Every structure is written in structure tokens, then in C-alpha cells.
């Protein structure tokens, strides 16, 4: 039987960064991905801020579909506000199929064993190790001292390890995204449009992909989605109105967690990272940055534990503390902001964008946006004071 120091389950950004971090320290790592190829099919609208990419990667040109200068915010009534990103919070629209693939290759080049079309089916805990049952072309078992669950939104690994990750329908968005060809949009700006008739409990995004191409999609809160009026119904309605001439070159469907981070994302000999730990931003649905950050922190924690040969639950508490400090506490606050935001009527959104349109675009950032939007909501204003943006 193959034996590893760590088995990382799930080859998204969180898993690949974790595997790379541990392999770099010289430990024996196995990275498993159930899909046939890392990064495909893509389940993302591919927006990410530069700060996260820079922190954990040497940004490669081939990952970037478009650099982004700012955001256009629109209301259902057609009001418009502009947000001009400053140099430090610039964004990118990625090509995730290339990005995710390259991150897995980096893990491999650092010494990790990586395998696709290998799904973890079952985990058995023994005294000092795990037995991991894998289904690929063949069924086989490996033994590992530790596990990192990086298995994304549909992940069941935490459940196998005794951590409940089941989501309420109010804490999950169904996202649908079309890559459209033949669209005429400003390729330097992303566009976000709110409205209960457009995307109940979510928003519409238009992300430029270069040339005459764009990612156009939306998220609908599961609790507000019905069999008839689901994400596809709303996206088709929007696209036929706004881009009647465009053709669809790619369809991306996926679920986005808009939940609070897990109260416990560690246990005896294991850690949970990324979407599997419910770490994406509950207001925006963005999860790439938090996946990278938690993956790296988990990698460091496991490496240290391997050096000391101490995999006790107590020793792994530190990971939770670090994740919460860097991204988790912010996500938790954004959860409350999301809960307030989904109560907005279309008129509230119109009023909000009208107010925002009066601000100098160079000075408008997320913090300012939320401060203006929630100026009459004391609870949220006090939350905002504590958020590090």
C-alpha cells in the first residue's frame, strides 16, 4: 500500500496550493482530483483581485483573459455608478482552466504526486493514520498520516470526517454563466446589476473576456429559486434582452456557497480549506482568493505538524485561528451584510445606486460603497468599521 504524509483531496486552487506548500518542505504528498482534468469543466466567472494572485503565484500572462480597471454598478431602474479601482486593488478575469491546471502542475513540480480521475470514496480512521479508498480506473487504497479536504462546494470529505457541512437553501446560490461571443461592451470594466426580477437574492455579472467576448452570468439564492423560475430562466431572459445577437460559446453552471465559514475546519489529523470550509465571500460569491489563502495556511500548518509529528486536534486549532484572522472573520461579517442586502427592494437598489453615482469614481471602493448603502443601519456600520478590506 502506498503511504503518504498528507493526502490532499480536491484539485482546485485551495488543494493545489496546499499540496505545493507541503511538497516544497519535502514531505510526501498525494493530490487527488475526481475530474478528468484539473480546472475543467470550469465552474467560475473567473474574477479575482490582483492582491491574492500576487501573494501566492508568479502571475502568468496566459492565465489572464482581461485586466480590470473598475466596476460599473447598475440598478434595475437603470441607474449607474462607477467604481474606479486603484492600483492596489486592480482585478483580473482569469482563464481558470489554464490557471487551475498550472497550479496543479506547480504542486507536481514541487514534488507532490498528482492524479486526476481519482475520486475519494471512503475514509477509514485508524489509530495513527487514515486509510483512503480511491476510485479511479481501478479501486485502490492509500494510507496517510494527515488529510486536507479541499473538495469544494459539493465536498463530502468533511462529512466523512465528522464535520457537518450541509447548507441551508438560504446559504447557497445557484450560478449560471454563459461565455458570450459577439458582444460589444467596455472590456476594461466589469458590470454588476442588482434586482429582484433579474436575479432574486443574487446579481447579474458581466465580466469582459477580451475581444468581443464576455462572461455573462448570475446567481440566484436557492431559497428563492423555483423549478420554473431558476437560474437558467433568469439568465436567458437577461441575455435575450441585453445581448440578443450574441452566441453562447460556453456554459458554466455551479453552486456558490454564501454561508458563514465552518465553525470548525479542523480535527484530529485533518484540515478543511476553500469552498469545502465554506470560505467564499457570502456577499459577492468570490472564493478564489480565500481558497488560495486557506490552502496556503493549511499547507504551513500541516508541514509544521509533520516536522513535530504532532497531529492532535489541539495542535490544529491554530489553523482555524489564522484563517479566521486573515479571511474568515471578514466573511462572517459579509454574511450579515448579505442577509441585509437580500432584503432590498428594487427601489432600495435604485436609491443605493443613485447615492453611489454621486461619489467620485476614484474614491469609491467597497468599504465606501457599503458605508453609503447602509448609512441608516447602525449594526452594519459598526461591522464595517472592523472589516479589513
Amino acid at each position, binding site marked *: 500500500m502506498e503511504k503518504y504524509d498528507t493526502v490532499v483531496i480536491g484539485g482546485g486552487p485551495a488543494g493545489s496550493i496546499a499540496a505545493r506548500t507541503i511538497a516544497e518542505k519535502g514531505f510526501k504528498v498525494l493530490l487527488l482530483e475526481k475530474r478528468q482534468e484539473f480546472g475543467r469543466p470550469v465552474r467560475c466567472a473567473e474574477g479575482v483581485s490582483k492582491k491574492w494572485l500576487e501573494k501566492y503565484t508568479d502571475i502568468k500572462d496566459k492565465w489572464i483573459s482581461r485586466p480590470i480597471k473598475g466596476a460599473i454598478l447598475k440598478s434595475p431602474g437603470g441607474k449607474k455608478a462607477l467604481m474606479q479601482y486603484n492600483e492596489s486593488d486592480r482585478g483580473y478575469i482569469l482563464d481558470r482552466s489554464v490557471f487551475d491546471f498550472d497550479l496543479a502542475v506547480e504542486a507536481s513540480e514541487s514534488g507532490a504526486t498528482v492524479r486526476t480521475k481519482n*475520486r475519494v470514496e471512503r475514509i477509514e480512521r485508524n489509530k495513527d493514520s487514515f486509510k483512503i479508498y480511491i476510485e479511479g480506473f481501478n479501486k485502490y487504497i492509500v494510507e496517510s498520516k494527515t488529510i486536507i479536504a479541499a473538495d469544494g462546494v459539493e465536498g*463530502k470529505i468533511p462529512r466523512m470526517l465528522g464535520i457537518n*457541512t*450541509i447548507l*441551508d437553501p438560504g446559504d447557497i446560490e445557484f450560478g449560471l454563466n454563459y461565455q458570450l461571443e459577439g458582444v460589444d461592451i467596455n472590456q476594461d470594466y466589469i458590470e454588476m446589476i442588482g434586482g429582484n426580477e433579474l436575479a432574486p437574492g443574487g446579481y447579474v455579472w458581466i465580466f469582459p473576456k477580451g475581444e468581443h467576448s464576455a462572461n455573462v452570468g448570475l446567481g440566484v439564492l*436557492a431559497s428563492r*429559486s423555483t*423549478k420554473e423560475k*431558476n437560474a437558467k430562466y433568469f439568465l436567458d431572459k437577461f441575455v435575450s434582452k441585453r445581448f440578443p445577437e450574441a452566441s453562447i460559446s460556453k456554459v458554466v453552471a455551479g*453552486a456558490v456557497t454564501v454561508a458563514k465559514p465552518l465553525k470548525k475546519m479542523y480535527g484530529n489529523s485533518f484540515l478543511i480549506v476553500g469552498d469545502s470550509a465554506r470560505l467564499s465571500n457570502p456577499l459577492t460569491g468570490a472564493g478564489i482568493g480565500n481558497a488560495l489563502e486557506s490552502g496556503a495556511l493549511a499547507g504551513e500548518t500541516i508541514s509544521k505538524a509533520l516536522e513535530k509529528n504532532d497531529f492532535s486536534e489541539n495542535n490544529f486549532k491554530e489553523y482555524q485561528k489564522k484563517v479566521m484572522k486573515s479571511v474568515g472573520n471578514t466573511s462572517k461579517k459579509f454574511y450579515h451584510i448579505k442577509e441585509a442586502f437580500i432584503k432590498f427592494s428594487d427601489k432600495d437598489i435604485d436609491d443605493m445606486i443613485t447615492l453611489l453615482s454621486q461619489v467620485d469614481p476614484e474614491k469609491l471602493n467597497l468599504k465606501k460603497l457599503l458605508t453609503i448603502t447602509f448609512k441608516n443601519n447602525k449594526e452594519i456600520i459598526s461591522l464595517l468599521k472592523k472589516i479589513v478590506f
Partner: protein
Amino acid sequence: MAVNVDVNKCCYCGGCVSICKYDAITLKETVLTIDNNKCIECNLCVEVCPAGALFTAEKEEI
């Protein structure tokens, strides 16, 4: 009755897997399976599937 999946419609978003409280759904790469022994037919997944891929049908029909 039992919950079924129309594999032609399912776009393997994984959403149903993460909301089923009875751990009845598994996504094997791009193939969704529902364990009839675990499913209590609460219908939650059928209501929320963004692709309309889940449906209930008489057991005989399967």
C-alpha cells in the same frame, strides 16, 4: 415515488449534494447518483436544481 436525475439536463453544479440533509446524493465526476435508501423524498433538491434535472417518478417506472 423516488427522486430521479435526468442526466441530459444535469450540469453537475453540485448544489443538490450540498443541501441534501440525508446525504443521499453523490456526484461522481459528472455523474449524479441518488441513493434511494437514504432519500426521504423531502423534495428540496427537486425544487432548487437550477437545471430542472431532478424529478420524482413512480418507482415502477425506473
